[in-house]
């Protein structure tokens, strides 16, 4: 096949990986060979394009009505087995559907729907989404809260707040208040639940944008770790006793996942790690140790979702409860 034999350093210099390259030797993925189950299938999956998926927005329509609209419009769709509001769609440009304009659907990657499910917000609660833009998870949480209570959607970046606001308006979310604080210094408040979906190196997004793999380096993972720890620490500080904090990333690097969660568990007293389990969705336990670093047995309660398990992107989710 030739391409796989190409000098590795020249590929890196170009910044792009050929589709048929021997992915397993590449930086960033090779290190997971002994960690990710069925590694060959994982490598094969990560270079397949992502299925087109969307979420039905119950704030503006009901499920049967939307599904019958799409049927009339001859747009094929199939709801997920694990989540009735999510569906795969047989169209290349779901953004050009009238149903998208009306806010009846929200285009969202399948696996990213998992964190709101784990967060499990209830109508009338006070919830914080600390790193909210562009608002896919925010609007999903707003929907689960049935447009009641308070959902503070925070993001410091001006440009990203524009897309966040736009998505919340289209979703018809009237319970979302948008703020623009540095998440590490979010003002003292008390929330029932907090989602800390941190910035990360995004290796799990490789099926959407293969360039993320070329940008990854251990240095980058370690560089962003301090921010991730600070955001999660602030998240657990602003949650009420008995409240839930969900930490998530879309990367495979344990430096940004288990390492962050275990450090915060070490530094903040009175936190417990709960088992993440989403029925009918295949996942792997978090890592208790990797490459000589021990994160603790309890890290197995976190969940890792790999692209080949459910034909999605990659994701990491941890659920913490404050005593």
């Amino acid at each position, binding site marked *: 096949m030739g391409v796989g034999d190409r000098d590795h350093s020249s590929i890196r210099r170009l910044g792009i990986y050929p589709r048929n390259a021997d992915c397993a030797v590449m930086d960033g993925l090779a290190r997971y060979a002994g960690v990710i189950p069925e590694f060959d299938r994982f490598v094969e999956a990560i270079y397949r394009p992502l299925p087109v998926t969307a979420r039905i927005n119950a704030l*503006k329509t009901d499920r049967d009505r939307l599904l019958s609209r799409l049927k009339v419009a001859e*747009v094929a769709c199939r709801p997920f087995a694990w989540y009735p509001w999510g569906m795969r769609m047989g169209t290349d440009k779901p953004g050009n559907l*009238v149903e998208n*304009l009306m806010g009846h659907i929200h285009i969202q990657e399948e696996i990213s729907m998992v964190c709101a499910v784990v967060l499990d917000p209830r109508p009338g609660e006070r919830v914080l989404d600390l790193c909210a833009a562009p608002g896919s998870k925010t609007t999903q949480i707003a929907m689960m809260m049935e447009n*009641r209570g308070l959902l503070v959607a925070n993001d410091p970046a001006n440009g990203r707040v524009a897309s966040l606001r736009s998505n*919340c308006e289209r979703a018809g979310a009237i319970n979302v*208040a948008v703020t623009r604080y540095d998440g590490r210094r979010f003002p003292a408040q008390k929330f029932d639940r907090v989602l800390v979906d941190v910035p990360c190196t995004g290796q799990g997004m490789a099926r959407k944008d293969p360039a993320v793999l070329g940008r990854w380096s251990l240095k980058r993972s370690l560089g962003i770790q301090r921010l991730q720890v600070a955001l999660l620490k602030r998240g657990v500080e602003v949650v009420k006793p008995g409240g839930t904090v969900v930490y998530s990333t879309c990367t495979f690097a344990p430096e940004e996942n288990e390492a962050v969660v275990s450090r915060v568990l070490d530094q903040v007293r009175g936190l417990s790690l709960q088992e993440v389990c989403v029925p009918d969705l295949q996942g792997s336990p978090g890592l208790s140790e990797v490459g000589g670093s021990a994160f603790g047995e309890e890290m197995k309660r976190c969940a890792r979702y790999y692209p080949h398990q459910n034909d999605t992107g990659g994701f990491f989710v941890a659920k913490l409860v404050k005593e």
Partner: protein
Amino acid sequence: MSQSSLRNRQPFLPVDRGEVAEMMGSRFGIPSEAFEAVSFFRRGRNIWAFSLEDIPDLDYEALGLRFISIRGRVPKPTTYALQLFGRFATKNAVDLSDGEARRFIAGERQQLWAPVEDGYVVVSYRGDVLGCGLYSRGDLISQLPKERRIEGKDMEGFSEGSQGCGR
């Protein structure tokens, strides 16, 4: 501090729900009960709809959604307000055919006879609200925000048979 955060120092001031319900009731016949669980606030030249009456003391970029724009001579309900509450309208509402909907979604002005008064109208398609239109002397002018418009050629989900309809 950036400019936008300075602008946000302008507070959200509570607006009487009855006032907003009266506006939506007199123009569209929407019953006031539709707004029972909604609180309204004014900031700048917009009225915002939010889920709570009491808001925690934070510096907000946005509070719920922009509901009515009071920039012009006549208050204009936003696309998003009508997408949420337009289904309760009993007057000044039009349902479009496939071809008419395509033109509305593309942001166009079109000739259309409809039993409505001149002014802002609820525009729907196949029973679901698309947004706000301005009806003026037999013309329906799309008020969809520019970033939401979809050009005819890019539109998805209209069956083949309906594409030429109404042209």
